[in-house]
């Protein structure tokens, strides 16, 4: 018997020219079944998830269609009746747990709030239930955890606490909206395990929203692929992975690009990092890190979050002065602090950030942001600069008329291309790429990586590539260095470094990357 039946659901954005965000989507979820919703950002996944709670984001409305939950039509329910369903019968787990918790109230009190509000349990029963859930979710010291505040626990623990919060009132349907996207791979593995355990033990039905097909494949029974609000394809997991019917699904399945063939022969050293140590206040972040990067090659630096990867990037760029050690570029020592670096030295090292939204000034036109780099580092006249901006935009695969736009009028992938163009405008010798693809959808990320590879072939530039994604390493890097708690634990060519025999840490990193096949999660956890 089906628990949830969505029929021909359409959601439009209200306003002057309404856009259809969800177009005629139908599906059913049976009791105890997990449906995975997958698609790029803007595909309408979250909008569908929220619509099932009878909620639309500001400026949107459900135009047509019906959402039948337990025989009750949700689209026509009054707000008061809807509140009785939300939290009690349908619960929601959001992407960023950090933003979902009230920092001033203990985790336990927030977890039991829904159960108390809906009068499912009295206070004591609810507390017992919460502690039981904490245990089930593998949280350490459940009793003490109840008393903790959100800032006292890690991101992965907070995400699990939110799952406990959703489960506490005993809902029949859970909606997971990208619950592991903001976590790094090793943490993601733990949370995925918690989710799959909880679903198996409590027998709750769930909708799992993600842009990562490999993750969805571990949790779901059925998968529905969405593109621009429309259903592309829906099938049981096995079938979707092995016999995709649609071209778009096939492209998603093969979103990983080719493996880079390492370049042979000796090359001049572009970047040499000698025994760098760095700290933030009292905390040591990097300890005696030494690396070399040959000219025209890519060195990937991998490690879990908190291992000091991004700090290393900051030291190279001069944003953070190291405590000890030196960075030299083509045998010339770079001064530790940004202020002491000459114009040429500033020009030689460029940085591409993880999140293009915050790396571009929202109040300045794209073209002008690129042109400013040219004005700083070249003698081009104003009209020459404009021409050069068009050339640079063309080089990263963007149309020249985008120069007149503000960043808010660009998509995520376009913004990251603008950031690449801005870095290239300086004609640097080295670009430090700080996870430039991790905030992008898989297909977009693949294109950006291909672009970076092409630029390297054309210009012979060197990349220092910071990432936690091992697939990305295989696609772009020649050499790799593994960073753990601020120390290099392993380094060398990709082909010979990321193979057995491995140390425990590198093995953990490698095996935490979800693979696109059914049963990967179980195998990994039992291994």
């Amino acid at each position: 018997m089906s628990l949830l039946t969505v029929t021909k659901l359409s959601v439009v954005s209200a306003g002057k020219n309404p856009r259809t965000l969800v177009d005629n989507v139908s599906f059913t979820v049976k009791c105890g079944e997990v449906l995975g919703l997958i698609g790029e950002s803007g595909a309408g996944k979250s909008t569908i998830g929220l619509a099932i709670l009878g909620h639309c984001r500001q400026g949107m409305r459900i135009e047509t269609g019906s959402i039948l939950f337990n025989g009750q039509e949700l689209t026509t329910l009054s707000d008061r009746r809807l509140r009785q369903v939300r939290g009690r019968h349908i619960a929601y787990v959001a992407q960023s747990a950090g933003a979902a918790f009230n920092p001033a109230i203990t985790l336990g009190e927030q977890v039991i709030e829904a159960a108390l509000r809906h009068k499912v349990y009295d206070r004591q029963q609810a507390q017992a239930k919460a502690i039981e859930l904490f245990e089930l979710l593998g949280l350490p010291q459940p009793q003490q955890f109840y008393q903790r505040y959100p800032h006292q626990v890690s991101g992965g623990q907070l995400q699990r606490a939110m799952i406990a919060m959703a489960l506490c009132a005993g809902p029949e349907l859970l909606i997971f909206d990208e619950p592991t996207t903001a976590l790094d791979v090793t943490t993601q593995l733990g949370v995925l395990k918690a989710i799959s355990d909880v679903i198996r033990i409590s027998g709750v039905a769930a909708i799992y929203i993600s842009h990562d097909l490999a993750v969805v494949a571990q949790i779901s029974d059925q998968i529905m692929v969405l593109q621009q609000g429309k259903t592309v394809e829906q099938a049981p997991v096995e079938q979707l992975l092995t016999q995709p019917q649609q071209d778009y699904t096939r492209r998603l399945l093969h979103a990983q690009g080719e493996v880079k063939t390492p370049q042979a022969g000796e090359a001049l050293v572009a970047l040499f990092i000698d025994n760098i140590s760095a700290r933030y206040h009292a905390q040591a972040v990097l300890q005696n890190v030494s690396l070399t990067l040959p000219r025209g090659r890519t060195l990937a630096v991998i490690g879990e979050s908190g291992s000091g990867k991004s700090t290393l990037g900051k030291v190279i760029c001069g944003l953070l002065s190291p405590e000890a050690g030196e960075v030299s570029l083509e045998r010339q020592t770079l001064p530790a602090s940004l202020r002491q670096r000459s114009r040429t030295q500033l020009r030689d090292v460029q940085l591409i950030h993880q999140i293009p939204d915050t790396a571009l000034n929202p109040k300045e036109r794209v073209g002008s942001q690129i042109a400013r780099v040219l004005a700083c580092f070249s003698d081009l006249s104003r009209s020459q600069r404009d021409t050069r901006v068009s050339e640079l935009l063309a080089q990263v695969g963007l149309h020249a008329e985008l120069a007149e736009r503000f960043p808010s009028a660009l998509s995520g992938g376009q913004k990251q291309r603008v950031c690449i163009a801005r870095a290239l405008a300086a004609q640097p010798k080295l670009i430090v790429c700080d996870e430039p693809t991790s905030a992008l959808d898989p297909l977009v990320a693949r294109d950006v990586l291909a672009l970076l590879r092409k630029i390297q072939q054309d210009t012979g530039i060197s990349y220092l590539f910071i990432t936690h994604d091992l697939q990305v390493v295989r696609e772009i890097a020649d050499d790799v260095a593994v960073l753990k708690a601020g120390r290099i634990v392993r380094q060398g060519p990709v082909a010979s470094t990321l193979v057995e025999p491995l140390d425990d840490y590198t093995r953990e990193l490698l095996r935490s990357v979800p693979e696109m096949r059914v049963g990967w999660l179980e195998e990994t956890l039992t291994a």
Partner: protein
Amino acid sequence: MPALKPSSILGLLVLSLFILIAIFAPWLAPHAPDQTLGMSWDLPGPNAILGTDNLGRDLLSRLIWGTRVSLGVTALAALVAFAVGCTLGFIAGLRGGWLDQVISRCNDIVMAIPTLILALIVLAVLPKTIPVLTLVLGLLESTRVLRVARSLAVDIGVMEFVDVARLRGESLGWILWHVILPNALQTLIAEFGLRFIFILLFLSALSFLGLGIQPPTADWGGLARDNKDGILFGVWAALVPGGAIAVLALAVNAVADWLMSGTTRVWGRKG
């Protein structure tokens, strides 16, 4: 720009009306501000639409000329407050460290002294000319602006596009002017509206106490003081400038509200 609400339209209309009155005072006022028409507190008549004040001068004309003085001094003082407050606040927020400590703590000390008392002491010593008054008002109010500007600069300063500018070797001044200011502008404009009203109230209070605009120049606070004794005799002349202050305050607040409603900024949000 956020969407217009009825209250914000009304606010904008009233505000523009006051600004037009201030600009065109010489043409709008039926009489010179210091011309005596009749006896003290004459009732409204064809010659003086709102009646006369304590010295027999036309109340309407003095109110119109007073609008020019009150609004002009307030606007200039607000500009001084923002020029000083934003510059120091931005520098403190962006540079941080000891410079931030020095600027912020000095600011706290000035803020700890009740503004009205500080202004009374300063004005008791200094000559009570309009430029001095404007400067004193502006500097005292700049402490509040400094706080807002500093917190905005701290907020914006951690954004990666500021790092990008630093990595280019841009000067502090360039970053303040080209990166921080455009991103802070909307909030600052809304803040300007609120500060404007506080300065107007402050100026009126000073004039009422006799340390603000000096007679015979007309301003709203001074008008209220000149005519306050009339209240004992049932003359409502003192309420007219008070009403003008209240209406303008409401109008500016409505406009500031409207501007503020568009400043919810969520950086790097993913849909």
